[in-house]
Every structure is written in structure tokens, then in C-alpha cells.
């Protein structure tokens, strides 16, 4: 059984700041890791994924995430945030049986 932990429920930064949203997972086998974004009142949108290869993966709108097997982590980063990045971000892990397990989400607030 896979689990996902997002340690920060809320993160607040100013426009132009960098940000890192943390995700830790547990799963014993090969896994796929993903990040999703949910703007207020909308469905989730896929941002990026990792399965193998380069541990740093690029997503849309300047987001990237880095996989670390030793830390069991898949943190999401952006070098310079915009007010439109304000949203809830979900980390997810796919283990067996084509099921995704989501973290509880981190709400990112970007102040101008």
C-alpha cells in the first residue's frame, strides 16, 4: 500500500519568490509520481510526472519536481511565482492496480 504525505497545509509567498512544496511517499515497488494543481472551484489539472531517468522533471508554467529515492521525496519547485499560481497542489503516487493515492494537498497563496 502506498502513502503520500504533504507536510505543509498552507504556504504563503510573495510574487517573484521561489517556492518548494514538499511531498514524501512510501511504497516498496516501482512507482509513478505526479503533481496536480487545483484552482478554486475547478477540477485537478495534471502538472508533471516521474517514473524513471532524470530525477528532475519539468512541467508546465515553469514548475519542476525532483525525485529522491533516498529521501522518499518528490518536491515541487518554482523559481519565481506569479499570483496566478495561487491554488492547491496535490502530490500523488501510483502503485499497483492503476490506482492513484493523493496527498491531502498544500494550499499556495501568492501575495502581490
Amino acid at each position, binding site marked *: 500500500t502506498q502513502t503520500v504525505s504533504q507536510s505543509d497545509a498552507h504556504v504563503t509567498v510573495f510574487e517573484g519568490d521561489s517556492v518548494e512544496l514538499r511531498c514524501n511517499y512510501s511504497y516498496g515497488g516501482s512507482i*509513478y509520481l*505526479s503533481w*496536480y494543481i487545483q484552482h478554486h472551484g*475547478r*477540477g485537478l489539472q*495534471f502538472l508533471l510526472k516521474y517514473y524513471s531517468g532524470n530525477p528532475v522533471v519539468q512541467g508546465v508554467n515553469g514548475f519542476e519536481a525532483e525525485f529522491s529515492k533516498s529521501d522518499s521525496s518528490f518536491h515541487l519547485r518554482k523559481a519565481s511565482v506569479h499570483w496566478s499560481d495561487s491554488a492547491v497542489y496535490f502530490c500523488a503516487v*501510483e502503485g499497483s492496480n*492503476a490506482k492513484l493515492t493523493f496527498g491531502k494537498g498544500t494550499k499556495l497563496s501568492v501575495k502581490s
Partner: protein
Amino acid sequence: EAAVTQSPRNKVTVTGGNVTLSCRQTNSHNYMYWYRQDTGHGLRLIHYSYGAGNLQIGDVPDGYKATRTTQEDFFLLLELASPSQTSLYFCASSGLGAYEQYFGPGTRLTVL
């Protein structure tokens, strides 16, 4: 871009009522999913399907039935709705695997 639609967008029913939530995807995806989203719990998987006629049990299936009638259509049925099923329901689909899912806009269900 993948298109997933849900209907109705909002639904109010009474305890013991019968509710059907509909989902359609037009991307020829094999996998379809039903989730519920509640504050403090993130997204939780109710049921999912690999294709027409197939049904798999998710993590929180109690009180829900589902049916996949075609490649495109996936329905969630609440035959005796209870207030604990008041929630925001999302449908999603994916093609290659669970890690890259496309979500519908959601259905807000209120059970009085």
C-alpha cells in the same frame, strides 16, 4: 486537450434519495475514476474501471455503486443517500496509466 464532462454540476437530495452522477470522456481513455473530495481528506477513490463492463473497488466504496456502460460513460449511483455523502465528486480518465489523469469539473452533492 482531454475532455471530461460531468452532470449535473450541482445536486441536492434528501436522506434516502436516489442519485446518479454521470461522467463522459471523449478521449478514448481506458481508465475512468470516481473520487470524492472533502476538507481534511483530500481526494479519495470510490470506484474505477479499466473499460466498458469492468468495475474495480476503490478505497471508500461503501454506499456507492458504479457502472461503466461504454468506453466513454461512467456512472456513480447512490441508492440510499446519506448526509455523510455530501461532498464534491470528481470523475477522471487516463489513457496509459493512473499517474496522468484528466479531471472533470466536479459535481457538488448535498444530502439533506
